[in-house]
């Protein structure tokens, strides 16, 4: 088994060293999709820390959190003729960012409210594309993506979801 540690960090300046493990609450567990046989036993995590900011927390002028993302993957075995590429995207996939091959020390940052982090297997022979072409190997959802409507649940179970646009 080959272990890969992928750091997908701050765009621009070199990221600061992490002296202790960041808290796990908002970390994104990357789950193998089983679509690539060599990756079925892979494990991974996307770790979030706030982007560099004089305020401790980092937010944009519109109030979005700004996160650095660090991905650590284990047991992701190389595939001849292919390379694993990391991406981030909004849950509806309307916006996506190619973070880069997992063999590189790619740096990236996000300020989407809810987002996916995923790894695809792309053909080595083709130039980098704006959208992935190969199969999704591992994927995870930001914890904010778990926030869902309360309609139809608990004390609101009499509130029909459809009224609020959910079906």
């Amino acid at each position, binding site marked *: 088994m080959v272990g890969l540690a992928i750091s997908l960090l701050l765009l621009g300046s070199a990221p600061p060293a992490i002296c202790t493990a960041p*808290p796990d*609450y908002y970390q994104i567990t990357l789950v193998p999709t089983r679509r690539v046989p060599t990756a079925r036993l892979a494990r991974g995590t996307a770790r979030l*820390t706030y982007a560099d900011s*004089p305020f401790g927390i980092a937010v944009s*002028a519109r109030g979005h959190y700004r996160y650095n993302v660090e991905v650590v993957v284990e047991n992701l075995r190389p595939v001849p003729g292919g390379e694993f590429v990391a991406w981030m995207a909004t849950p509806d996939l309307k916006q996506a960012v190619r973070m880069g091959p997992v063999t590189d020390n790619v740096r990236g940052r996000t300020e989407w409210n809810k987002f996916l982090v995923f790894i695809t297997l792309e053909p080595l022979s083709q130039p980098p594309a704006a959208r992935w072409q190969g199969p999704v190997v591992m994927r995870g959802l930001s914890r904010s993506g778990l926030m869902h409507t*309360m*309609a139809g649940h608990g*004390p609101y179970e009499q509130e029909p979801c459809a009224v609020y646009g959910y079906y």
Partner: protein
Amino acid sequence: MPATAADSVVWRMPPMDMSMPMMPGLEDALPPVPPALPDQQAMGIPAARPSAVVPLADGDTLQLEATLVRRQIGDRTFVMYGYNQQYPGPLLRVTRGSTVVVVFRNELEDPTTVHWHGLRLANRFDGVAGLTQAPVAQGESFTYEVYFPDTGIYWYHPHMREDMQQDLGLYGNMLVQPDQDHYYGAVNAEETLLLDDLLLDVHGLLPWGDASPTHALMGRFGNVMLTNGVTDYQLSVPRGAVVRFFLTNVANARTFNVTFGGARIKVLASDVSRYEREVFVESIPIAPAERYVVDVYFEEPGTVAITNAIQAINHFRGEFYPHVDTLGMVTITDEAADPDYGEAFRVPRAYADVTAEVDMLREHFDRPPDKELALTVRVQNLPVPIMMAMEIDTLYVPPMEWNDAMPMMNWLSTGSQVTWIMRDVDTGKENMDIRWEFALGDIVKVRIFNDPKSFHPMNHPVHVHGQRFLVVAMDGVPNRNLVWKDTAVLPVGSTMDLLIEMSNPGDWMAHCHIAEHLSAGMMLGFTVHGADTRP
């Protein structure tokens, strides 16, 4: 307590987003404490005046009085509280190193004190009821000697029932001028901005809890934004002006994300010092009790809005949505600013003296913490629908609560049902059972973890009395541009390493500065042993 409760005051449900359905089972629920409100029909209450600037030299004396005032908020008038009949209280302008005497008199029915937030002054004048002084009852006085050891922007407020007294208007700024030239860069104008919010409905001020605060879960968010006590703050500046704003968040619970309509912003300083290096930013997230000093460059003529721009959360729909509050308007005239400081603005300055001071402590940055705190909450006897909703809702807890997304649930929670907790990880002691002991000159590393798996996690602006500290790391990431602070916000799920310089002897407190969390127990005590050798 407080004695302002009137027989005629009744609870009214707080204003809600009308797209959110009433929570089943809570239609008739009320907070389990009586409501309290200053008598809105009281006669002979003087109209409050705008804040006055009070220059004070070393040794001067100020008379400060807390009274009822009649305040105009928008087009409505309310009976509220005020210092020296002003909103905000008078702006004290002093020079670093000076000491002034403040003879405080309380004419309110509520007992109160005055806390001089951020100042490393003598312990007996810190204004903490039950720790450094007895409450000042109606008609009584207390004389404070207020020492200003550090340049910057500070503020004063009560340290009793802040949730109500501060919210009703008891706050003011202290601007401590540097005792050296060129401390900051040159600017065309200076403005102090006190940011607040107030909770109103069509009938007026929403009552506060009498024996215990309401809104104990999230703190009391207002729905009307106040800048320097008014809803229509305005400023006019010439084209090309560089304006220095001294920002203070005096709200009970709200963290603002302040923007200046796209004008360039440069951060110079925070609570107790300048940064090592000035930094350009898009916005200023400022938690309760924090302060920031920023320069803003108004390059082009026109009008820009000062805003609070956030991604609010609708918990019912499970969505983020953009929300903008207007905090004020700046008109930039066609006339050119003279002198033109635009070029100087574009060059961020570095402050070697700040770095030199920080360097003396760097050996402590990476060592294990001396103390560890976990922040959590305990609840009891909350209505069952709230408990059910909270269990569903905690699939995702935002790092920061920028808006009151559950106003009814929040309103129904009181200090008798909610206990916010600072827990010493080593001893298991909680809140004021914690009494740390230090010696003067100690450098103490405190690691604070905001437990995301509690019943209702929330961000906490942690304030340390009487000392100053550095935030040396957040979530294990070292801070590369340090500034001395007295208050720092800790998001949910995060870990913050503070390096506290125990420079001021006495019995002190550290606590969450969300007023309702403080009233719900979230505070600890510590003693710094040693002789006070100040003149």
